[in-house]
């Protein structure tokens, strides 16, 4: 197993290098000028000699290869470079805002299991019943509703009916759990409901396949209770694709936070990413994209490792 993990980690390195090249090049060919953005309406006053000096200060006048290598060195030192505009390092930003985003994503994935798996089970066990149709209607509905719209609606309803708005600022769970929950719950529910629709559909289709297998019929023939048949035998075997999907969806959840945090005005990494794009803060954008890629790769690795635990037939050598 450890050899397998090492092998996967080594294979992740070229993938991550590929990500760095893609994001670096994309940002440089993207239209827009960070120096102009820095000075806003004053930008029309920048003299060429001032622009040259400012670009040099920001490291933008160096050849692209030098800029890229400098970034790789920053990654190597673990500081990830400094925000173009602020004195803080990107690590500071991640430490400050990351916990909130991770919390939202974890809450959303848990919610998606809590809602999606039971709905999927009921839908599979009562196939083509009214309950199944109802469940399928809602899963399609939650798949179709864009998160930013649902988020905006929730914010509006809370505000206009109850004069309520979530607290402001970065409030971590260890600082003030009640306020933290007010901050994280809205985005987590919006993201969780969307993801639960995927989970419900996957649970339903996996279970429908499994419950027709011979060993399920055998379990029932042995006189096992239906609950045991479904939960112990069918669901465990149906869980592999659900786990795989959850891993993929966790990645989507992280990207989903970009939109939903903006809608709820939650100062997580997603919102930081949006702000960085608006301000063309290359240092922040490229490091956050890299971070999301690392998280995605790590989660996929963990999922692969979890297969062996869930299905004893799977062994990594």
């Amino acid at each position, binding site marked *: 197993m450890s050899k397998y993990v090492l092998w996967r980690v080594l294979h992740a390195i070229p993938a991550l290098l590929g990500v760095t090249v893609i994001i670096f090049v994309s940002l440089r060919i993207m239209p827009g000028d960070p120096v102009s953005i820095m000075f806003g309406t004053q930008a029309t006053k920048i003299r060429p000699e001032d622009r040259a000096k400012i670009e040099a200060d920001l490291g933008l006048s160096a050849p692209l290869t030098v800029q890229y290598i400098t970034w790789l060195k920053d990654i190597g030192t673990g500081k990830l470079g400094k925000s173009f505009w602020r004195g803080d390092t990107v690590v500071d930003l991640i430490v400050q805002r990351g916990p909130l985003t991770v919390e939202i994503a974890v809450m959303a994935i848990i919610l998606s299991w809590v809602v999606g798996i039971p709905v999927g089970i009921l839908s599979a066990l009562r196939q083509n019943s009214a309950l199944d149709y109802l469940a399928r209607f809602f899963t399609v509905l939650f798949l179709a509703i864009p998160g930013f719209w649902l988020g905006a609606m929730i914010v509006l309803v809370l505000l206009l009916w109850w004069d309520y*708005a979530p607290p402001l600022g970065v409030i971590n769970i260890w600082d003030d759990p009640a306020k933290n929950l007010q901050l994280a719950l809205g985005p987590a529910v919006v993201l969780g409901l969307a993801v639960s629709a995927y989970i419900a559909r996957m649970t339903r289709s996996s279970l429908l396949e499994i419950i027709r297998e011979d060993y399920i019929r055998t379990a029932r023939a042995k006189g096992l209770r239906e609950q045991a048949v479904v939960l112990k035998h069918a669901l465990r075997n149906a869980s592999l694709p659900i786990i795989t999907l959850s891993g993929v969806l966790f990645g989507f959840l992280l990207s989903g936070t970009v939109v939903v945090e903006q809608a709820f005005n939650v100062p997580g990494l997603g919102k930081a990413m949006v702000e960085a794009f608006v301000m063309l803060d290359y240092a922040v954008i490229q490091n956050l994209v890299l971070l999301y890629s690392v998280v995605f790769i790590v989660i996929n690795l963990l999922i692969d490792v979890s297969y062996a635990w869930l299905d004893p037939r799977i062994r990594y050598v």
Partner: protein
Amino acid sequence: MKPWPNVSVLAGSLALLMLSLAVLCVSAAPPTSAPADAGLLGAPEPNPKRGGVLKWGGLANSTLYDLHQTGTIANMGPQAPMYDLLVQVDPVHWDKVIPDLAKSWTISEDGLTYTFYLREGVKFHDGAPLTAEDVVASFNHILFPPPGVLSPRQGLFDAVKEVVATGPLTVEFRLTEPRGYLLRGLAAGFNVIMRKQTLEENNYDLRRLPVYPGTGPFRHKSLEAGVVRKLERNPDYWNPVLPYLDGIEIYHLEPGPKTGAACLAHTVDFCWGIDTISEQKAQKIRGLHTARIYPHAPHGLWFNLKKKPFDDVRVRRAINLVVDKAALVEATQEIFPQVRAGWVLPTDPLFQEYWGKVQEQPGWRSPTAEDRAEARRLMQEAGYENGLKGLDFLVRDLAFYLAWVPIVQDMLKRELKIETTIRVAASGVWWEEAQRSNFDLSIYGYGTTIPHVADYWNAGFKTGGGYNFYGYSNPAFDAIVAATARESEPTKLKALMAQGIEILDRDIPAIAWSTPVVPIAWWDNVKGHGTATKSINFWEGMRDEIWWLEK
């Protein structure tokens, strides 16, 4: 579309009339007196209470931290309370400039030397004493920035040839020619006094320095960039009475519904830049108050005068005659309220008189059949009787610009057969394209620092002015701008303005049709805001030292 004027615009005009009366003396007062410190500042209300932390919400996410290099509210809100100015606009009586770090000053008979006498015992937040050298270094930073350092207000002090420390606590500003608005310029909220040592240690560039010592009523406590800056009371502030608050928390909120929501839900006490829907709701909530602020920021249609067809004044005049400015202002009332403006801005004391004269004249009124016929005649004379095709209409991706641009496009096509292609660009792209003259037409707006026509015209219309990226140049007009800057006698200033307006009406370098209105709101517990909520105080009312909270 409703014809102008309507109720909302009339109400706006009434507010502006009151506003203009209030500021009547601002640009007119000749700076020949020798004011003395009239006493220390305090709250406008009796019995102000000490204590409490004010929660302020609004645009507060800046791309740089150097107050001398910036020009936006995003810096003023979170940073202004940490710094003092040499002189300041009276937060209670907006038309007066009163002492700040300078306890008094004298002005020579010829108006060429201003001598400021600094307070004794003022300390920076790091404990260092304030000296005249700090004031000199601060203004050298503004007046003579080194390469790579931008100074947006440099033009405001174009007549200052040097700033000299003539004693440990005495500073002289030496001018090449008089400037009627110099004190007002010095009092602009961005021109804070920084520490000489800080400037020197950072090569006079504090863009990426989130915290640097000031002498202001509040000092830095913590910063979560892009989220909140927390300030705490400066216990060593030179005015022993101030500040009243224990601290301020300045939350960054995007202007519009998000700021409005925070105010309606009372997660903040004071909100800057709410949307009109929130404004209407706030007006129905007991304990919540609203007001509208009028920044000096002309918006309109800008031509690229460096190339055809807009190098031909006849084409510009024709367009000016058919663009219905009143309709454009009305179109964005719900998303970004505006009031009409022209070659004089609504915050100028002479605006009402100016507007009274021009509002029914061709080019300013909504187009009539006569105006349309004249516009078509001008186009024919210019050789464009069949219209124009393929013009590049560059526009920034701001909501109200995006609302305006198709209306203007339609007006041009319908009235003059001018066909344009709208090109929407992110702000960074827009500025790049504008600087490269890579556009034919654009919707644009800029902010001026003081409510004086010299600042407005100098920045936007003078040859080589800071915002003159589109190529307008008229030596006769430049001479008038220079004269308005020198003039402090109201009658003469008015005569010069009339000459300038005549040239602009003839040349039509751009079509300025409005300035924005910023709706604000605050809860009952917030007191002492003085003129900060009385329509006009924009850059100057953000230091919050006389604000207090009713518990």
